[in-house]
């Protein structure tokens, strides 16, 4: 049936092979519907008297709307309702506001200004799709075309046009900085020590997910004042929450039905079509379909955003990488959507699966007049992984090393300290390299074949080095011309060796009824603990003040954050780090393993495959 090969020789002691399903062919539970053509996607729910909604869209990258003349369109055959920006009850949102991250910056229907080609300024509901199209074509919009910017680095220059008024510096605010900072060790010292410096720039264009089913939704009034919405969304409750917010209606009035998606790949999380369809149903009292055609899917459907990465490595003649510096740009397009998260998630991934003692990174989420970007397979990771692995080959060439050897030499081993101050665990890159080389017929030295992810960590690789810090790139500095370079600056302060990152606390939820009850879902909201044996119990869980308090007056801002958790980044700059012990005493003491967490849980009499959280 398939050519999946199970390499049970690897990590054999960490796995239970008495499995009934895994590793065996299994029919998909939904596949009979697929081959019978009976699977019902959102558009397969037929409604009598269905109305069709379509948008009037901007032909310009950046323009002000002087006026809209829809008088002719309103009189056309079949037209039931013209929907204006003013018809949207709460016409401002940002997707991640549902988890309290970022500020509202995008309208469902733009009223004053458009910031990307294809942004909607008006919608028309008509009895047939053709009538809705014809009416949209008859709408006259008076545009005042504005200068636009389509390149991330250009957008960060002081004179660039302001794309998104909510973020006038053309980049997302990772307070107090305009970028995500990661500092580990001292890259400048690493470069000075290195035998070779290898630097290159990598770019990835936007990629459209291009699902065969285009984005869309059908909404209809139900009895009891509710609205049903059939949707192709990948994120049903995200879409429901977003619709409730934009339409300013209780979520209990919305009955969302989804889960059958004609391909998504990340392109169906932006929740743009559901609020439109429900709004149409509210305004007309009829079932309304809002469906993108293929041209819209390609033009206004949010793609994986463009990325640019500049990587600078310091490498020893034997191939050990001793310093790696990143300057990364995520092109968010005109609005934030999920790109702010890409910045933190991408940073959490650095410097790739390699033990490098000195790492520095500045990552920007930049606004340009391009189509807003969103998730796609491997969101936030794919571009930088592409860059890192291309760079590994370049480094190998520079020092005359075999590219597989270079990877095995530098690969994480279990127990190594990562740049964001977590221990590497469940590492497998060494084994991946060995298997891939075997498949490709690539000769690997006996020493590299004998290497293992489970051995090879050293005290040096486990240590958190003394770290050089800087406070460059505060919000607004770049716009004011005070920051000519986007690259990590030379550190002016030092953080002592062994300093962990600060703790993160969960952000308060936006609506009280969304509060997760810890005892109901069975896991604590608490900071991750370092379970590795090398971690000294006396290491404080939060960053101490830096040793040079004269230059850090208010707070230990420079303590590098663990960057994989976006909500923490959004915390106001002035808030002092707050450990979260108050939740702990009330809880029963959780199971604490006496050995480091490895693949699977090891507790007597319990399956090793407990995820750690479990429903009651």
């Amino acid at each position, binding site marked *: *049936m*398939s050519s999946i090969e199970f390499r049970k020789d690897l990590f054999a002691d960490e796995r239970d092979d008495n499995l009934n399903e895994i590793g065996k062919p299994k*029919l*998909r539970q*939904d*596949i*009979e*519907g*697929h*081959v*019978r*053509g*009976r*699977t*019902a*996607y959102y*558009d*397969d729910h*037929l409604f009598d008297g*269905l109305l069709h909604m379509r948008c009037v869209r901007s032909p310009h990258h950046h323009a002000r709307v002087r006026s809209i003349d829809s008088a002719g369109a309103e009189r056309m*055959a*079949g037209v039931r309702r013209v929907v204006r920006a003013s018809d949207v009850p709460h016409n401002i949102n940002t997707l991640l506001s549902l988890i309290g991250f970022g500020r509202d910056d995008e309208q469902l229907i733009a009223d004053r200004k458009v910031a990307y080609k294809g942004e909607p300024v008006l919608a028309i509901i008509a009895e*047939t799709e*053709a009538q809705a199209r014809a009416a949209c074509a008859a709408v006259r919009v008076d545009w005042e075309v504005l200068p636009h910017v389509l390149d991330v680095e250009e957008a960060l220059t002081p004179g660039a046009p302001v794309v998104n008024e909510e973020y006038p510096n053309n980049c997302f605010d990772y307070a107090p900085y305009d970028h995500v900072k990661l500092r580990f060790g001292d890259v400048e010292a690493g470069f000075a020590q290195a035998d070779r410096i290898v630097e290159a720039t990598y770019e990835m264009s936007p990629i459209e*997910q*291009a*699902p*065969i*089913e*285009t984005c869309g939704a059908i909404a209809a009034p139900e009895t009891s004042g509710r609205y049903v919405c059939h949707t192709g969304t990948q994120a049903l409750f995200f879409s429901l929450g977003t619709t409730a917010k934009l339409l300013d209606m209780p979520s209990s009035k919305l009955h969302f039905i989804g889960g059958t*998606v*004609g*391909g*998504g*790949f990340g392109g169906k999380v932006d929740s743009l079509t559901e609020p439109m369809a429900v709004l149409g149903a509210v305004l007309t009292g009829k079932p309304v379909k809002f*469906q993108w*055609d*293929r041209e819209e899917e390609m033009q206004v459907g949010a793609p994986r955003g463009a990325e640019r990465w500049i990587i600078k490595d310091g490498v020893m003649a034997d191939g050990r990488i001793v310093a790696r510096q990143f300057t990364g740009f995520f092109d968010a397009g005109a609005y934030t959507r999920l790109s702010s998260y890409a910045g933190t998630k991408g940073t959490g991934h650095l410097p790739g699966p390699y033990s490098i003692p000195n790492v520095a990174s500045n990552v920007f989420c930049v606004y340009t007049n391009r189509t807003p970007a969103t998730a796609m397979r491997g969101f936030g990771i794919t571009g930088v992984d592409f860059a890192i692995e291309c760079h590994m080959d370049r480094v190998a060439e520079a020092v005359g090393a075999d590219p597989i050897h270079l990877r095995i030499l530098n690969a994480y081993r279990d127990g190594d300290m990562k740049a964001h101050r977590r221990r590497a665990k469940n590492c497998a890159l060494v084994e991946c390299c060995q298997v891939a080389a075997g498949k490709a017929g690539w000769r690997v030295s006996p020493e590299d074949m004998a290497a293992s992810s489970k051995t090879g960590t050293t005290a040096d690789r486990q240590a958190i080095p003394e770290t050089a810090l800087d406070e460059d790139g505060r919000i607004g500095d770049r716009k004011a011309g005070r920051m000519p370079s986007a690259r990590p600056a030379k550190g002016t302060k030092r953080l002592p060796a062994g300093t962990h990152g600060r703790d993160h606390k969960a952000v308060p939820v936006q609506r009280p009824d969304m509060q997760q009850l810890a005892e109901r879902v069975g896991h604590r909201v608490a900071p991750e603990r370092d379970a590795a044996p090398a971690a000294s119990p006396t290491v404080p869980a939060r960053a101490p003040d830096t040793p040079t308090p004269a230059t850090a007056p208010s707070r230990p801002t420079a303590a590098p954050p663990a960057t994989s958790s976006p909500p923490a980044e959004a915390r106001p700059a002035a808030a002092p780090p707050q450990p979260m012990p108050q939740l702990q005493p009330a809880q029963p003491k959780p199971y604490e393993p006496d050995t480091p967490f490895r693949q699977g849980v090891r507790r007597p009499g319990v399956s090793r495959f407990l995820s750690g959280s479990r429903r009651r």
Partner: protein
Amino acid sequence: MAQTPVRFTLNGRETGLFVEEAANLLDVLRRGAGDISPKYGCGQGTCGACTVLIDGAPHLGCLTLAATVEGREVRTTGGMADGPGLTALQTAFMEGFAAQCGFCTPGMLMAAKALLDRNPQPTRDEVIEAISGNLCRCTGYEPIVDAILAASGQRGAA
């Protein structure tokens, strides 16, 4: 809006509908005849999700003016299996994991059926050519090609 009558057989059944003059066959099959198996993916002949058989040959529903099927025989994936059993082609798709989201599947099945009806023992290249007008974004084409080849080995059972 001007309506015009059109009569054709749909999966062997006499069907008569009033359709808008400029309506395409895809819309008429889905909203008029209630056969949801052909899918809308592009409306411009790029994706093949609306592939149906007209007089046995694959056509794109979205680019076929509905009025032109007057008197002709239309077949869709919705009418492939008559009863609880599946055809060999459907079974091969099912067992060969040749569908993931399933959205391209009805079009793929029609393109594949058109091929096997005409050429019961196709080569791999002929299969690839036969589904070249049908896009799939998730499963990838290999399992689909494999499934069609597998079905060709047991056509008699269909």
